[in-house]
């Protein structure tokens, strides 16, 4: 059900998110906080001793039965989805089910849907250097739908979001926010240490999900290739067979270094691969959400 190859065929991110969440989250989710809030949740039988303000008198007048209205409680928790829309995220290996960006996009939609169901506000920050998207966290289903539509229209292109944009993002992150960063994190660990400065604060929780394609880890299966950099003008010829071992070692070292850097920055780090199902990432996210 959570196979990215199947899911990537669904255009509607809202529908995709509902399918994923309902298929994987039964029994895992804690109950919604019911109480005082702005958004009506459901009716239930009035319990003696309960505040009479909750009684719906119109229903009582019609049915001669005391029922109490319950409201979904505002949690004051914001979920900020950070989606890397640089050109390198468009990469898709020969046998990969989808591109890295699509994988991240699907995950972000699921996270947003989960958060909205729990009454969290959901916001978006992402894109590329030339096209930065920023949607302030908002509650409610309609706001989520607008966010998903906006996110669905994003296309990976250009370089990573610039330093200035990250600075502004750091400045406007609402308190009590969960920040989920979906990126390939190939820009260098030092860059990310700077970008994730906010994570050191107790007001924020941050989850970094590095999304990579399998071919990025083991190189394509080919005799010789002319590699062309997706976010630059660099080109080089190499025989993947000859450099595979060396490449894997360098990649592992980088990932270890990156993980260390991110954890030191106060964030959590998870590694995702586009050919794996989305459940692993969802579980990581829910674990964080339960803690908060």
């Amino acid at each position, binding site marked *: 059900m959570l196979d990215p190859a199947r899911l990537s065929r669904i255009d509607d991110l809202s529908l995709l998110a509902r399918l994923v969440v309902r298929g994987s989250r039964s029994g895992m989710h804690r109950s919604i906080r019911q109480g005082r809030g702005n958004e009506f949740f459901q009716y239930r039988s009035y319990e003696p001793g309960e505040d009479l303000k909750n009684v719906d008198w119109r229903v009582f007048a019609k049915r001669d039965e005391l029922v109490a209205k319950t409201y979904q409680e505002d949690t004051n928790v914001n979920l900020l989805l950070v989606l890397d829309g640089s050109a390198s995220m468009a990469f898709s290996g020969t046998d990969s089910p989808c591109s890295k960006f699509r994988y991240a996009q699907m995950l972000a939609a699921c996270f947003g849907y989960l958060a909205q169901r729990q009454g969290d506000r959901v916001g978006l920050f992402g894109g590329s250097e030339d096209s930065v998207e920023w949607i302030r966290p908002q509650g409610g289903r309609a706001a989520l739908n607008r966010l998903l539509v906006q996110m669905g229209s994003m296309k990976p292109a250009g370089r990573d979001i610039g330093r200035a944009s990250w600075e502004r993002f750091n400045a406007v992150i609402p308190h009590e926010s969960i920040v989920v960063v979906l990126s390939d994190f190939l820009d260098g660990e030092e860059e990310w240490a700077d970008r994730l400065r906010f994570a050191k604060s107790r007001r924020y929780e941050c989850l970094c999900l590095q999304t990579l394609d399998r*071919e990025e880890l083991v190189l394509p299966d080919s005799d010789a290739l002319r590699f062309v950099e997706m*976010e630059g003008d660099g080109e080089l010829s190499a025989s993947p067979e000859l450099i595979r071992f060396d490449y894997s070692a*360098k990649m592992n070292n980088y990932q270890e270094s990156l993980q260390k850097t991110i954890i030191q920055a106060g964030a959590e780090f998870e590694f995702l691969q586009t050919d794996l199902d989305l459940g692993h990432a969802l579980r990581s996210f829910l674990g964080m959400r339960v803690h908060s």
Partner: protein
Amino acid sequence: MIEFGQPLALFGGLALSLPILAHMAYRRITEKRLFPSLRFLSPTTIPRSGRKRPSDWPLLLLRLLLFTAIVLILADPYLTNSQGDAPVSASREQRMHLIDTSISMSGWGAWEEVRENLLEQWSDESVDHGMLAFDTGGLKLWNPGIPVDELRAALNELKPIYSPYETGALFTRLSKLWRDIQVPKKVLIYSDFQSSDWQDVQADVGALGAELFLVPTGHREQLWKTRSGNRALVDARAVPAGLGKVGVWAVVRNWDFNATPVQLSIFAGGIERERVEMLLPAQGTEQAHFTLPAGDFASAIVRIDGEDACSWDNNRSLWVMPPPARGFAFLNHEQLNISDLAEKEFLQAVMDSVGDGVWNRWSERSDSDEVECLLIPGFSDWAQDDGVVEELKNHLERGGVALLTPAESYVGMNQTLRESKLLDFTFNRVAQTEFRMDPYRIKVLAEENPLSAVFSGDSARDLYLTKVRKFLFLRDWEDQLDAPLFDREGRPLALVRNFPNGGKLVFLCFRLLPEWTDLPTRNSFLPLLVELCGLSGDAGLEENDDILAPGTLIGDGDDAILAKDPGLYRYAEKRISVHAPLSESLPEVISKEELMEALNGSRGVSLSPDLSLSGLGPDHSRDQPLWMWFALAAGVLLIVENMISAPRSGPLLSAPSRDA
């Protein structure tokens, strides 16, 4: 069927493993791949060996096809015409030797080469030899299987002849000989293949199932190319050169590619009379002039001194004495009246005055065969009775000229002419001027009238002042008659009928008598009759002589002479010059390919003079070469191979995205 000119080249196909090895050894970067980051990649050199098996099968197949096409080009493939492969029995092979005996074969050493080649061929006793050639008696066939000794004897008698003959007749005879014979057959043509002899020949040797072999002779080292080294006297003529002198001019042609000095001499009475030196321009002509005393010699020979490649055309004989007088005769009624006699005298005076009296003169003859001009004054129905009409018709059919004047019995004259179908017109009446003040006058000649070129200025005025007092008023003359003279009212004064073989009948509508006209007393009289009858002749001597080609039979019956060689002949009183055609002196040679095509020599072989039959492979000139098709295929394959194997410079390839 496809055959190969160089079959050994097919062994090059063994090298087909080369492109396979090259394909496996050669590693190309044919693909560019977008990649997120190059920071962990190290550039490496692409190894050129180590591929254990070919991975790009279409490219390997393409290269194999390319290599195969190149091997086939080297093997010189051609498509043979299966027509020449008719099934034959296992009988003895028949080998026919067709020999060109035109006189050009006497030059450039061709005939000696023919003899050598034939004797060598006849030494092969495993086949039946035959021979086909023209000699002075016509086409002669020596059937295949004839003893070789007889062939040798025939060859000794055979030599180039001056008489022109139809080369195609050789193949017509050959076709009759071999039409129903199913044995292995070969045709060998021994010739210099001079263009003039072979350019019009058409035959189908392939249809006879015979192999055709061309044996070029007399080509020396310039095989199948235009030869050189020949100089020829292409013309020589004698002309009056003043009192007591005869001028002779000769034209010499140089077929050499270099300017050549030559000496020309003229022989008369067996003694060299004059010699001139000249420089003949390359591939050009030059003229020489000689002067001889008139009347001392009947003929002379102009000669090019020295030797050249073809010597038969270095001499030319010509007549240098005045030609015999041309003959004329009167045909008249046995009983001449006064008018007839007077008119005859006028006409006699005309004929005595025509020409220059020496080179171009006329004399009255009694033998009708020698008469060129017949004069019939007072023509009427008596001509029918005396057999004059038949004689006149014969004369006209021989190309002679006749002049008729009417007799006073006009109706009988008109009826005789119409019944004999000599002239068809309607006689209306006789126009007379006895009762008129003014005589009839000749109408001004139209510009297109041939007489207008003769009568102009004072002579024209003299003609137009001619008085015609009486003439036959004709009308409704047939269309084939010309009317060169009219009176001023547009009525014809003379009718001319031209016959197909040159005969000319001139009918005057008036008599040449003073009571009819004053024309006989005018200056216009002589030129008018000369022009009407066409009696003027060129002053050149040969204009009055017959010029014939060699091999022509001169005369009839037992007195006939066969003029087989060039030279001067005299038959009765006629002088005859026989000259070989100039075309036999030409050094141009027909191309081998053109001749093979004309003879449909689908399996033809061209032999050098010093090579034997067994020493040569087939000549593909008649076959359809296929190498260009393979070259085209190789070119296309090479382009496709380049397109496929070249690094792509188009849009970068990325792995296919499965995104929605």
